[in-house]
């Protein structure tokens, strides 16, 4: 009994010991894991501190140094002012470092939440532009911020974090692009397939900066990773920015893509789904059919303005030079078809835009709306611009809502008669005879003319034109566009024959020569043959529309 009792006791003891050993082993494993985690955490902390210490110390050194210089020149206000400015710059940078670290920490600990609130894409892009332009200007870089088709300006999303994504990417492009380099930023929208509530915001930022190696490209979104080279050693940063961007884009269910070539530049592409906010319809007071003069050297920008104007039924006339704009306005005033407003752009081919504005203000009177469409910071420009006679400003990148809203407001103020303009535009009641032998030219001209609603008939040469006119009832054609060099019968002869017909409208129908021959004697020859005016080929759409407007609405 005693032995068996002993046996039982020893088994129990062994069992207890085994359990204890297993328990101890588990504890050891746990402790080992804890130790490893602690060591890893320690390493991460060291790596973080090592990465951050230089970046924090740099602006701190500037703050300390400039404070010291300022104190030693305390009587020299300008010097102290200069030091304080530099201290402010360094402190702002330091603040951005701290913010990056806090953001990363929130993302890591899953404490980051995205908001869903309505915002204006136009406002957001304008704000971004205000932030990044001065940085690019400091490095004398060309920063182009352009927009493609954007139909939905009112969206729902997290504007704060969206701005963070965009500012980080563009800011990096500025930072890692050499002085006088080029950065191109583009925004556009497309509707999401199968989801009528959403649009995709497509954005790219392309630079011709230093670019990245394929090895670095693989690690670009890893925290604390930065390009290390002689060129980047003086560029401040934590290496957290791209990691934050990637996290934010993913949380917004978007995609980010990077293409880069060392020494050639980089391109970041971001696509983000956004919810469309219900459109707020603001009534625009725009006199449909009225003309607007665009004075801008940049063809793309002028084209964009013209497109927005066309979409609401306004007719644009484009001039690249200030002298041309003044000449056109003088003649428009003489002929009694002044435009309802003038949009002056960023630059002209012969003078500064404010000088043109100043002269036009005198020429056209105090009520005439002159809008400045510019990338410049209005706050900096306002005093000079308003003194020059500008009475409206539309910031770039150019949004349709901004342009038309400002124009509408100014036209409302200047009291343009909406109804009158409406009455003036009814081109569908008019008929044009287009005389042109080259088929491609015919197509282009018909296309250009058709958008105005006017009825267009075509003749392939002068003889056909004469025949068509002869066989038409009186007053059938309101206007003839006549090519000069054509087979069978040229434009001069055709005009002479039309003018020579014995019918009342033969002398009154307005005939416009369309030719590349633009010398003074060509213009005269056209007039001598009986044509009323002359336009140069290739024909500018705005010039055609101007003629239609003058003939049918004037």
């Amino acid at each position, binding site marked *: 009994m005693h032995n068996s009792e002993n046996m039982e006791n020893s088994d129990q003891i062994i069992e207890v010991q085994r359990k204890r050993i297993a328990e101890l082993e588990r504890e050891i494993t746990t402790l080992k894991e804890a130790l490893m985690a602690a060591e890893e955490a320690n390493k991460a902390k060291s790596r973080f501190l090592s990465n951050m210490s230089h970046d924090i110390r740099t602006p701190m050194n500037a703050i300390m140094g400039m404070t010291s210089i300022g104190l030693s020149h305390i*009587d*020299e*206000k*300008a*010097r102290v*002012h*200069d030091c304080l400015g530099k201290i402010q710059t360094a402190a702002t940078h330091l603040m951005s470092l701290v913010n990056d670290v806090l953001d990363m920490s929130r993302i890591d600990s899953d404490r980051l939440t995205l908001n869903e609130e309505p915002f204006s894409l136009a406002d957001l892009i304008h704000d971004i532009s205000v932030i990044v332009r001065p940085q690019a200007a400091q490095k004398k870089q060309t920063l182009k911020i352009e927009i493609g088709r954007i139909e939905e300006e009112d969206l729902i999303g997290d504007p704060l974090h969206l701005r963070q994504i965009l500012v980080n990417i563009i800011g990096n492009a500025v930072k890692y692009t050499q002085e006088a380099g080029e950065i191109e930023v583009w925004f556009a929208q497309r509707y999401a397939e199968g989801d009528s509530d959403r649009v995709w915001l497509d954005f790219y930022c392309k630079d011709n900066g230093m670019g990245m190696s394929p090895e670095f490209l693989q690690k670009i979104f890893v925290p604390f990773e930065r390009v290390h080279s002689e060129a980047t050693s003086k560029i401040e940063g934590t290496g957290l920015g791209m990691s934050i961007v990637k996290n934010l884009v993913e949380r917004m269910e978007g995609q980010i893509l990077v293409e880069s070539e060392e020494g050639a530049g980089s391109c970041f592409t971001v696509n983000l789904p956004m919810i469309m906010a219900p459109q707020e319809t603001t009534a625009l007071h725009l006199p449909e059919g009225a003309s607007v003069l665009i004075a801008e050297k940049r063809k793309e920008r002028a084209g964009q303005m013209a497109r927005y104007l066309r979409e609401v039924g306004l007719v644009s006339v484009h001039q690249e030079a*200030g*002298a041309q704009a*003044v*000449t*056109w306005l*003088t*003649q428009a005033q*003489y002929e009694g078809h002044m435009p309802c407003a003038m949009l002056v752009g960023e630059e002209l081919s*012969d*003078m*500064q835009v404010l*000088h*043109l504005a*100043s*002269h036009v203000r*005198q*020429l056209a*009177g105090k009520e005439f709306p002159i809008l400045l469409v510019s990338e410049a910071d209005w706050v900096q420009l306002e005093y000079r611009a308003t003194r020059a006679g500008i009475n409206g400003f539309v910031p770039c990148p150019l949004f349709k809502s901004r342009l038309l809203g400002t124009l509408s407001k100014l036209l409302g103020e200047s009291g343009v008669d909406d109804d009158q303009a409406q009455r003036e535009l009814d081109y569908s009641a008019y008929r044009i005879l287009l005389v042109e032998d080259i088929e491609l030219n015919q197509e282009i001209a018909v296309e250009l003319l058709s958008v105005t609603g006017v009825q267009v008939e075509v003749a392939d040469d002068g003889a056909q034109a004469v025949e068509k006119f002869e066989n038409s009832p009186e007053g059938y054609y309101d206007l003839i566009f006549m090519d000069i060099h054509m087979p069978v019968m040229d434009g001069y002869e055709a005009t002479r024959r039309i003018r020579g017909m014995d019918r009342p409208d033969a002398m009154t129908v307005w005939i416009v020569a369309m030719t590349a021959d633009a010398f*003074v004697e060509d213009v*005269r020859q056209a007039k001598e043959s009986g044509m009323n005016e002359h336009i140069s080929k290739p024909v500018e759409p705005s010039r055609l529309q101007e003629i239609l407007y003058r003939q049918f609405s004037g």
Partner: protein
Amino acid sequence: MQPYQEEYIANLREIAALAARKKTEGYSLTGYQEALVKNRMLIVQKVERNMELLREGLFPLLDHLLEAGEEELGQLQEFAGRLFQVGEELDVGLFCQIHQALLNCARLKKDQNGMIRELYWLGIGRNNRCSKLIGLEYPVIENYIFEMRLCFTEAGAYLKYFDEIEDSETRGYILRARANTALGQYASASEKIARVRQTLQILQDHYYQDKEPGLPWERYIFMAHRQMASSISYSRENVMTAEDVESVMESVYIVYQAHMQEAAERGEHPPIHSAFNYCAISYYCGLDTFDGLLTKTEHLMDTTEITDFSSENMYGMISLPAFYLQYLKQFPERIPGRMSYIENLYRRILDYVDVFPDAPENEMLFLYLRQLANNYIETADSIPYGAFLLKLLMRFAPDIYVQSYIVAKAAAAFCEMIVAEEPGFFDDIEEISRIEDLQEKKHEVGNFAMACGLLHDAGKINFINLYAQTGRQWFEEEYEMTRLHTIVGESCLRECASTRRYAAAALGHHSWYDGSHGYPDAYERLACRERQMVDVVSLVDWLENVTDAQCLFTGVRMTFDAAVKTAVSLEGRRFSPLLTARLRDGQIVAQLERAFAEGRKEACRQLYEEDFIFDHPAK
């Protein structure tokens, strides 16, 4: 004209005569000084009277111009015409104001002929303003050019309606305005030449000639050829295309032939101007060598007479040397062989300027002198450039010379006091920091301050009419324009090695210490090594201005004590606190005031004795 208009014009002539250099014959030094003071008082009286006349006569009329009758408008136009006509520039600022008002009136009345006429005259007035900016970079002056050109552009745009506009005079204005769109600098030579070419095409077109045969077409065409011929200056920049050279060559030939014929009829030599253009275009077409051109130019300059004050002789005496020097600057290897010729040239010019009859309204003379000052080449024995500039100031704007001398004297005295207290004060300037001996340092700083003071307003040479001969307070746009004297001065002084050191004082003396106000933007105080000296000149110049010089034009006048107190109150904003702190010391202020008084006396003595040129540190 109205009586007040007649009186205003008479006053302008008297003011111009009073502001010109006084003859010293028959005066003792004291008598001369008293005469200067009396003249000054008379000028003040005349200016005040003129202001009254404008306030009581002209301005009310301009305010109610729309209600003015034909007779009143006609008188106003006649008055404007007398203010600025060929060879006589009495008051271009007022000329522009009147034509601007008439233009506004015509616009409101929708008087098309009036608009075209007034645009033309306003453009003419503005073109005169542009001519004062010779020597400045295009971006600095383009604003003035655009303002002028847009007037002509608008008036010229009516060419399209030549048929419909029936008034012959208006048709003439349209053609002339169209031609004048080529006036002034263009961004490129070809652009300007193409513009004149188009003008010629229009003027030679029988379509227009037949419509209005009464217009002086031959004269218009000849003037356009002259305009084209004057484009020859662009060829020096080697920027003309073959087509441009051909156009210029043709015009030069036509102008030369016409002048030859006229001269032959009168039994005279052909005019120097077109003879030079002919020589120059021959060189550009490869018909002559560069040395040949230089020799022929020298020959033309040698034909001038020191007693001949005709415009042709004046051109040959002053403007042609400017072209000659510009050529030499392009080929500096040709300078050593021509040094003595250049030295003699300068002496002849100064002698000529010295005996030139007092004709302060002769703007052409100033224009030529500006051309010359912008192309000056200094040689070892030539008159130093700084001295040359001072001679011009003394000759044509003695008041500005006196003011500059006072500033120089006071700045030198102030600097010596500062160095005695704080020897390292100006050590940002390398040449000063190297000097260890205190006396030598004081002397050197004093000399430097003297030269900076004397030359800080050298840019006013371009605006002599405004500073020395304006018979009223400035209009806002004139005030704006005078600000350019800082940039003009800097650009002038940078031209030659001997004056380069003083350029910062010319540029920065109207800039505020804290950068918040003042002008020009081109001056960056913290980036300027000579900033302490610029601060000194800036403070002393301000004290001088508010106590005397500018009061006529700006209407501000203070006593010396009040000016010092105001300067101290602007400490750290307008003026350097390191300097205003010293103005709290009564002894320093007293010494400074003495320096102002002594400076005035000495400047007057120099005007009396005309002995300044070779004694100044600015040489």
